[in-house]
């Protein structure tokens, strides 16, 4: 009989603890999120975190002061490339012998240039490194980034162990709870707003509901976001383009305003969320088959943009997640519509957590769990001034111009390669271009074929 009473006491106690937990969350996190003010708890956490990481970095550096010093340069590269053009390099190679009078300028040493370029790209290339997480210069006390770092001192290991406890046993459950609350709120709230008739208050309520959800989700990731140049914030009737690192980009941007999303219709939980969102304000969801029809896509985007009451569209022109060290080719679709483009640059600070979603390595759930067991998510968002397509500029050039502006602002490398190379092979035409370039160095410009490139 006493066993039963003890059991009841235990469950009563557990239930009571759970109630306290929920009240704490609601009052300390949800209410501030709803009304947009902060209690300073996260700020304190961040300050402690920054100090701890700095201390750890110093300890590691001091321990390795006798070994080879860290490279002072920002590049973590393995080789130093010769950046001579094909023409220059081949000329130097051919200098050793006189040019033959007839029959084409070829020497056996021409292959040296291609061999060296080939081996350089095997050791280090611009593209494949963008699809894995950035290498850190100094360890940030997370297990997952511990590739090169070794045991330094007892204190450091203790802090690391404490970090694991804090991250997995305290922060992770808290964040998961918040994420669940945030998402359920989104579904319930937007469906509720969707029931209202189309009064002006509906759009205001809809934005409010969306923003609360995203704020809760942001707290759920311990996100510390700094927005710069907010006077350039995207306005209605425009298209907001940003570089893409992970699905969390959406949470980051939507914390500061409402956007209309574009994307594929999913099933399951995502589908439920999508359908709920669309009830309260217009988003653009495509069926999988519809996405291939370029005209349909363009038409729907144009229609949305022309309706000045609808929110600005949020698009990630890279089409895939890249690791936030560079910006890859922008697909020209959104730049052909003729709408105002509002570029946004997002840069995460890798010290606090790696935000990149390596979709070939981790599933979405796995990724979210990793996010929730990182220290925090620190990022900077820059709103760039609006851009328009200029006279005589085609969509591709316009897209490249916007991409350069974003890369420049975010301190990212501007690459011409297609993010689709993550999964697909590179097009043959690029190789053909190299061959054509070389041919013109062999026979001059009177080659027999003519192609329009």
């Amino acid at each position: 009989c006493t066993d039963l009473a003890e059991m009841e006491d235990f469950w009563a106690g557990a239930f009571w603890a759970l109630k306290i937990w929920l009240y704490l969350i609601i009052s300390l996190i949800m209410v501030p999120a709803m009304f947009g003010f902060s209690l300073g708890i996260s700020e304190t956490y961040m300050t402690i975190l920054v100090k701890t990481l700095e201390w750890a970095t110093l300890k590691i550096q001091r321990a390795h002061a006798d070994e080879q010093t860290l490279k002072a340069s920002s590049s973590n590269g393995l080789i130093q490339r010769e950046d001579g053009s094909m023409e220059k390099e081949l000329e130097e190679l051919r200098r050793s012998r006189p040019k033959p009078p007839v029959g084409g300028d070829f020497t056996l040493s021409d292959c040296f240039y291609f061999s060296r370029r080939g081996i350089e790209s095997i050791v280090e290339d611009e593209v494949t490194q963008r699809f894995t997480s950035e290498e850190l210069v100094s360890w940030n006390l997370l297990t997952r980034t511990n590739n090169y770092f070794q045991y330094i001192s007892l204190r450091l290991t203790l802090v690391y162990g404490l970090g694991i406890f804090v991250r997995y046993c305290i922060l992770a459950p808290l964040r998961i709870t918040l994420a669940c609350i945030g998402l359920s709120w989104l579904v319930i709230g937007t469906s509720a707003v969707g029931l209202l008739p189309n009064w002006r208050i509906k759009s205001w309520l809809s934005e409010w509901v969306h923003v609360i959800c995203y704020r809760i989700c942001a707290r759920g990731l311990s996100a510390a976001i700094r927005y710069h140049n907010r006077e350039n914030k995207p306005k209605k009737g425009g298209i907001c383009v940003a570089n893409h690192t992970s699905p969390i980009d959406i949470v980051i941007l939507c914390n500061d305003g409402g956007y209309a999303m574009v994307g594929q219709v999913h099933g399951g939980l995502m589908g439920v969320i999508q359908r709920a969102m669309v009830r309260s304000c217009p988003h653009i969801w495509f069926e999988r088959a519809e996405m291939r029809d370029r005209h349909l896509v363009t038409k729907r985007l144009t229609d949305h943009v022309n309706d000045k009451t609808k929110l600005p569209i949020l698009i990630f022109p890279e089409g895939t997640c890249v690791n936030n060290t560079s910006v890859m080719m922008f697909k020209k679709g959104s730049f052909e519509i003729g709408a105002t483009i509002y570029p946004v640059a997002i840069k995460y600070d890798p010290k606090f957590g790696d935000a990149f979603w390596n979709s070939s390595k981790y599933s979405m759930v796995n990724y979210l769990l990793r996010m929730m067991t990182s220290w925090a998510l620190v990022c900077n968002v820059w709103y760039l001034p609006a851009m328009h397509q200029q006279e005589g500029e085609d969509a591709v050039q316009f897209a490249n111009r916007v991409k350069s502006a974003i890369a420049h602002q975010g301190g990212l490398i501007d690459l011409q390669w297609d993010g689709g190379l993550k999964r697909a092979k590179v097009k043959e035409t690029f190789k053909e271009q190299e061959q054509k370039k070389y041919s013109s160095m062999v026979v001059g410009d009177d080659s027999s074929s003519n192609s329009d490139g």
Partner: protein
Amino acid sequence: MGSRASTLLREEEIEEIKKETGFSHSQITRLYSRFTSLDKGENGTLSREDFQRIPELAINPLGDRIINAFFPEGEDQVNFRGFMRTLAHFRPIEDNEKSKNPTASEPLNSRTNKLLFAFRLYDLDRDDKISRDELLQVLRMMVGVNISDEQLGSIADRTIQEADTNGDNSISFNEFIKVLEKVDVEQKMSIRFLH
């Protein structure tokens, strides 16, 4: 920044590779990291597809020949030792190495071995001779469709004529070395590895 040999690369192996190729400890661990990142199948070896996944290599006209240089005759997989051995050809030649030990075997990055790497790019069937056919095939790889067969043929003929000294209408390795004796092979076939 300290470097820790991963569980898959033991200290003894690193020492052996260091002796064989001349790379430094940290260079070897970083190249191992690169090797594993290319190894999508995670079985400790690279296949030709793993190399072709590198876009810059895929658009290189001699990309396939370079990839082939990593694979020993008849094999389809290359392990880390083989990978390093081939990369070692492109280490710059340091002056202090030349006088070290005259009886030791030639280092992988000597001028002769660098030329051998280039020779093997042309020598498709590995019979130690570059025939006219082989030269034509490699030329075709480099120029694509932009030059006619006749013109390419005359380029090949002229090249062989210049290099061939014993009249067998093909280029042997010694003839290859002779023709390129004025070229700065040390600099052109070397890559500057950092740290």
